[in-house]
């Protein structure tokens, strides 16, 4: 089964690792912003292969993890309405709200369904005209174009029983928020591949121009990540701080203009709360005026309430790279994948879940 390709992978990896070892000099910290990178790093055992001084820390790039408790509670409250069917992506099902989770609500008989594509919401709304279908949409720039397409299509087809509870967030403002107080020492960023397929390189340029830090937009295969780390180390050695693209097979300088246009037509930026990072200006997406009749936060009389994170949970600090999962007193004790306390243990892209699942060898 493609054996030659896979054997090559081991050889290439050892060559890049030799180069990395040659360049490694003293302590250096890179943040992988995206949860998919975190998982890939653990799965391929990259941490166990890097020289001592290179530290990888996980960032806020897990959409489920950064969704605050208040938004989970609001989705649960909506699902409790008798005529409402709540649609969501799978990982959100187990995230604890203040006193329940969507999974527990489903076990109590609420109509909560997992979908994998935003377009599924159209089909469900068309089939079940008597119910009000609420799509609890969580995600970054990667999913927003598809959500925008679904919204446009719903309007075109005059579907009037489909509503969007938008919990979408944007990555570059979060990176800025992370850097502004300079609470966490970061030497460079492994920047997300999928998000960048949509937005391209330019939105990250402030990292280099304002903060004099480096970044490499990186793919998700183990070899991509090793190459990304190598490119960051090269910049360090040559004293450069630039945003480079390793993932050239998918990411274009200007991103995907078609997708960006669809997003722009349907959504506008709005202030959004992030777990751990708090309120960040223009870091969320809300429906534009002409689509407001689909906005669940306006149509339903269930206001957002700020809620406290679960006591003892340090997900907020983990999402900022200030703490690592094993630093948490609840980690693998009271908080496990079966009985999660915080969202980083729930999401398949959460760093606590990755630490717990794949084990940390360093």
């Amino acid at each position, binding site marked *: *089964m*493609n054996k030659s390709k*896979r*054997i090559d*992978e*081991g050889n290439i*990896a*050892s060559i890049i690792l030799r180069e990395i070892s040659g360049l490694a000099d003293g302590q250096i910290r890179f943040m992988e912003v995206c949860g998919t990178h975190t998982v890939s790093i*653990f*799965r*391929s*055992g*990259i*941490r*166990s*292969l890097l020289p001592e001084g290179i530290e990888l820390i996980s960032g806020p790039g897990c959409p489920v993890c950064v969704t605050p408790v208040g938004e989970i509670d609001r989705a649960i409250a909506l699902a409790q309405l008798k005529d409402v069917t709540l649609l969501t992506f799978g990982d959100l099902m*187990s995230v604890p709200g203040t006193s329940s989770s969507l*999974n*527990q609500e489903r*076990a*109590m008989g609420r109509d909560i369904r997992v979908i*994998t*594509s935003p*377009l*599924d919401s159209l089909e469900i709304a068309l089939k079940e005209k008597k119910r009000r279908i609420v799509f609890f949409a969580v995600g970054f720039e990667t999913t927003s174009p598809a959500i925008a397409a679904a919204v446009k299509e719903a309007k075109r087809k005059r579907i009037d029983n489909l509503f969007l509870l938008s919990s979408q967030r944007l990555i570059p403002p979060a990176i800025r928020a992370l850097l502004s107080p300079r609470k966490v020492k970061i030497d460079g960023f492994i920047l997300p591949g999928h998000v960048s397929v949509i937005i391209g390189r330019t939105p990250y340029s402030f990292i280099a121009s304002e903060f004099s830090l480096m970044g490499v937009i990186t793919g998700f295969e*183990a*070899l991509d990540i*090793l190459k990304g780390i190598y490119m960051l180390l090269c910049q360090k050695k040559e004293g450069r701080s630039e945003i480079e693209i390793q993932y050239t097979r998918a990411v274009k300088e200007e991103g995907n203009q078609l997708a960006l246009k669809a997003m722009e037509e349907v959504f506008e930026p709005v202030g959004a709360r992030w777990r751990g990072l708090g309120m960040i200006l223009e870091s969320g997406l809300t429906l534009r005026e002409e689509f407001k009749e689909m906005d669940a936060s306006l149509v339903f009389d269930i206001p957002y309430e700020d809620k406290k994170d679960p006591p003892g949970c340090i997900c907020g600090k983990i999402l900022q790279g200030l703490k690592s999962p094993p630093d948490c007193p609840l980690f693998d004790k009271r908080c*496990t*994948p*079966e009985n999660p306390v915080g969202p980083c243990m729930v999401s*398949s*892209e959460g760093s606590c879940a990755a630490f*717990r*699942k*794949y*084990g940390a*060898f360093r």
Partner: protein
Amino acid sequence: MKEGKILLAHGAGGKLSHDLIKELFLPFLENELLSCLDDSAIIPTERSRLAFTTDSYVVKPLFFPGGDIGRLSICGTVNDLAMAGARPLGISTSFILEEGFSKEDLERILSSIKKAALEAGVMVVAGDTKVVEHGAAEGLFITTSGVGIVPEGVDISGSHAMPGDFVIINGPIGDHEIGILLARGEFSLKGEIKSDCAPLNGLVKAILNACTDIHVLRDPTRGGLATVLWEIANSSKVGVIVEEEKITVREEVRGVCDLLGFDPFYLANEGKLVAFVPQKEAEKVFEAMKADPLGRDSVIVGRVVDENPGKVLLKTRIGGHRLLEPLSGEQFPRIC
């Protein structure tokens, strides 16, 4: 009284299923035969050892590429007996039918049961039928039980892995779960992957003919290869090291996993087994497996070690290491 509700994830065959059995079932039902928690219980009688097992089938959809609920209900129970090294003697089948279920579909399922039983060389010797109101079951559920005889000299258990053992698996992993998933059409993914659903007693017979001193046999069904290896490492208090490069996953299966964020090590199989074999017998057993139609793609994927008892270490393709933990939570409901 325990608090809380049963979640779908309690049926996924991972950590939650484990906890449910330990916390709720065993306190009431525990005895020295049940507590082994192997695929079959081994009941000693005056003349021989009987293997006894039972399983329910709730797969959705009822028909899928590579099989249907009927074939699954025979193969699953035959395999549970085979994993004890037992020769299946007879199987019982119980049907819970939903009012309104089509006779034509029932006929198809029964014909498939007949075919699978012939393939496995086992007789269906008892049965029961119940009908419930429309809405009280989805189409039909089947429960099968089976008895078999464990040949003399054979003593297989999840707790018998020994340092030095070789770990052999009879082919690529993940076909069943991804096959079911695609058959449900929920992910608007096109393509057809056949479930690997098959009776493994013939392959087990070939293995035991080559060597009676097999330490462990397990079929990685719900919870997948990772969960099964973890259970064995725990029951046997040994470490297990497997190599990612050796474990094959079909490109189509890998593709779906990449898209949906699944890990192939946690995908259910219905025609795969892992064998833990003493080092000096490994080559003989491996050759015997390769000679069997269901073992043609067998590979030696790892070894048992003294270090890190209770842990499964995966050597990744790029030469790194990570742990293989048991499935936690729900990967995908109603796959068998």
